[in-house]
């Protein structure tokens, strides 16, 4: 028995996705008798005039059956003698691209249908591109409706050439092309003698035997912390799922973003004490000392994962409301939820040709490479290096819609914004960002300060139309304060005077006294969220 295969079917409208899966389930005798009965009954009122309409097996929503289309992704579970399968059948309409992407994020392999009578369409290309974007590495192009073109080899060869070109453009490495007929059953579960010129296996036997092991494991150990488990004052454990590598009692780990080190004191796997745990397992880890770790932090060992505030990402926009560059969204990445801004659209990607197009707006169902800046530094990485820390969604702060999904392409560790340099250290802060209200969007928009380095004695831009800073203030850093006196940067040091105290984003902290540093530390940790102003 081979390992479970999660796959999706996608492709343009009416290419026969639901019919194909329905036919596999039917032919492979994977239907329970009552489902079969319901299918036959439904078909009598369906669109194929009494013949079995296999798609009715999957189009489970009333609106779908009324309109004869697939709106949302359906999951089906079946097992043959060779393998267990979960298939996500996805909609072909451009309108429902986001639901197709939901299925793609879940799958190890994509079966992309191509209508032999229509060839490779824009929607075929869009789906292949989104599958590749969401991390699918294995592709089957099922050239369907071969019966409509008389099982013509030359026509198939021409389509196969288009598929080869598309695969090269997307950098797909594992690609298989199979000619078939989903309604008639040719090359679906068994090889068809009506397509003798095709030598490869039929679709189901191929899916049953194909190897889905990953090309290379991710580097090191890492676990995003989901929650802190504190049943009583003696126990403090960090709960999460191990995303790569393994961990055992006695291992030295690093907590990110704080960078603190600790030794693993005990490991609990799903409720039971253990010596060690590995990738995929849900664990509770206890450490040998107090470290600054909460939900959203990452525990890692030898992974090379970095802490950064900004990154570039390929985004698939899914919201009816277009992207607002400079506007703040909720960003969910790993187990972290924090405000973030898409600062720029570098370029859009033409779904059909793959061309990079300059753009000022990003609309629903479009893909673009964008720059994103988070409200705070966090442990993130490129999708290709540590998948779980490179997957993200953006959530609209008013409608709460999931506006976009995307993957981190590059992590930007170079300091941006206002950089303060006293000759021995450099600190980048979000001072002097401009906030303004966009009444058309009901949103406060933030415009980041471009990268400028200020040295000791330099005048600072304390007043403009969008903000006004006091003449004298301190900015609270982790170990010291940054001092501004009479409008000039004067250096770093301990807090000595009762001037205004700001956090690293330029917001005032409570009080301006000289009370001990610890007090400000807790305020700053809880503050941070932009929406509170």
């Amino acid at each position, binding site marked *: 028995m081979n390992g479970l295969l999660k796959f999706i079917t996608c492709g343009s409208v009416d290419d026969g996705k639901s019919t194909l899966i329905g036919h596999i389930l039917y032919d492979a005798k994977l239907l329970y*008798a009552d489902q079969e009965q319901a299918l036959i009954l439904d078909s009598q009122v369906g669109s194929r005039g009494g013949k079995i309409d296999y798609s009715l097996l999957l189009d489970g929503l009333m609106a779908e059956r009324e309109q004869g289309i697939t*709106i*949302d992704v359906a999951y089906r579970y079946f097992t043959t003698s060779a393998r267990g399968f979960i298939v996500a059948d996805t909609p072909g309409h451009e309108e429902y691209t986001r639901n197709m992407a939901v299925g793609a994020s*879940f799958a190890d392999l994509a079966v992309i249908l191509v209508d032999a009578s229509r060839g490779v369409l824009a929607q075929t290309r869009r789906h292949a591109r989104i599958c590749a974007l969401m991390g699918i590495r294995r592709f089957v192009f099922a050239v369907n409706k071969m019966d409509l073109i008389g099982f013509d080899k030359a026509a198939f060869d021409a389509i196969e050439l288009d598929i080869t070109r598309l695969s090269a453009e997307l950098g797909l490495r594992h690609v298989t092309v199979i000619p078939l007929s989903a309604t008639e059953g040719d090359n679906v579960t068994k090889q068809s003698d009506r397509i003798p010129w095709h030598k490869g296996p039929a679709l189901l036997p191929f899916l049953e035997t194909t190897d889905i092991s990953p090309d290379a494991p991710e580097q090191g150990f890492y676990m995003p912390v989901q929650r802190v488990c504190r049943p009583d004052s003696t126990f403090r454990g960090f709960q999460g*799922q191990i995303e790569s590598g393994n961990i055992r009692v006695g291992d030295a780990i690093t907590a990110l973003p704080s960078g603190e080190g600790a030794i693993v004191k005990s490991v609990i796997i799903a409720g039971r004490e253990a010596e060690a745990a590995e990738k995929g*397992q*849900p664990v509770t880890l206890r450490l040998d000392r107090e470290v600054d770790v909460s939900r959203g932090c990452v525990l890692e060992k030898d992974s090379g994962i970095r802490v950064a505030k900004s990154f570039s990402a390929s985004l698939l926009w899914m919201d009816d409301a277009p992207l607002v560059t400079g506007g703040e969204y909720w960003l*969910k990445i790993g187990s972290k939820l924090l405000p973030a801004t898409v600062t720029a659209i570098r370029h859009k990607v033409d779904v059909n040709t793959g061309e990079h197009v300059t753009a000022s707006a990003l609309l629903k169902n479009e893909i673009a490479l964008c720059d994103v800046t988070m409200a705070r530094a966090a442990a993130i990485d490129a999708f290709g290096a540590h998948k779980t820390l490179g*997957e993200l969604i953006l959530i609209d702060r008013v409608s709460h819609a*999931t506006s976009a999904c995307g993957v981190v392409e590059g992590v930007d560790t170079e300091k941006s914004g206002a950089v303060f340099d006293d000759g021995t250290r450099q600190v980048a802060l979000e001072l002097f960002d401009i906030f303004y209200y966009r009444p058309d969007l009901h949103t406060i928009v933030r415009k980041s300060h471009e990268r400028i380095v200020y040295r000791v004695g330099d005048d600072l831009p304390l007043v403009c139309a969008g903000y006004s800073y006091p003449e004298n203030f301190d900015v609270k850093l982790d170990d010291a304060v940054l001092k501004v006196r009479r409008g000039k940067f004067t250096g770093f040091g301990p807090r000595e005077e009762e001037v205004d105290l700001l956090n690293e984003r330029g917001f005032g902290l409570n009080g301006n006294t000289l009370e001990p540093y610890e007090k400000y530390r807790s305020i700053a940790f809880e503050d941070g969220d932009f929406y509170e102003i």
Partner: protein
Amino acid sequence: MTHLDELEAEAIYIFREVAAECERPVMLYSIGKDSSVMLHLALRAFFPEKPPFPLLHIDTGWKFRDMIEFRDRKAAELGLNMLVYKNEEAAARGINPFDHGAAYTDLMKTQALRDALTKHNFTAAFGGGRRDEEKSRAKERVFSFRNENHAWEPKNQRPEMWKLYNTIINKGESIRVFPISNWTEHDIWQYVRREGIDIVPLYFARERPVVRRDGNIIMLDDERIKLRPGESAERLRVRFRTLGCYPLTGGYESDADTLDAVIEETLAAATSERTSRVIDNEAAGSMERRKREGYF
């Protein structure tokens, strides 16, 4: 990791996400085998802490007696906060499964559930729904958003990518969460066996008092069920594949009185399990309709 380990890990991940991000979670507890598996997973997810949310049972007043006894025993054994809610107003009006059909289901299940969730201001509710059970469930997200009327909007579900669940809601809105969405009936039984999970004895064949009615075998669980003309009480060796209200739950003649025998019989079965729930066959799309009205 085996397939069951992966399903377990996925469910635990989901439990923890909800506990970490949702303000007032609750776990729906229906006493069936899926609920037993859910409870087992919840205990594991938070160990050594207890699950940081209460359990809620919607009692119609017509559950099998064995179920109620099992519920109370489990709550006591595990020291769980088990809330029980019943639509007392409808019960006082005499609403019952024999005379009121669809209205009974609506009042005692759907409306009772809505009222209970509203009463306690729960913002997230775990349910044991699985996508292999029914066609509209096959379409539902793991985190299923509900509007202020608890209604599901199937044409406008939030996209759900990878394990990145969007749990942000406005006041009055809520989320139904299905940690075992990707389990099949087969997986449930395998896991029950592997983990030695306690389940209600009704799942095992035993001689029970029953009546044959409309093609179903209905158990005579108490004196409130009256025989119709032409019907007669029988004693048959039966078991149940799903548990609900006894007058609405069909049993099967069976000799499977051990877990292994039950699993063997289940795997060989030629009908999917919800057929034995009378309410699902009322009309095509009935489950979807009820979910849009606020049912699980």
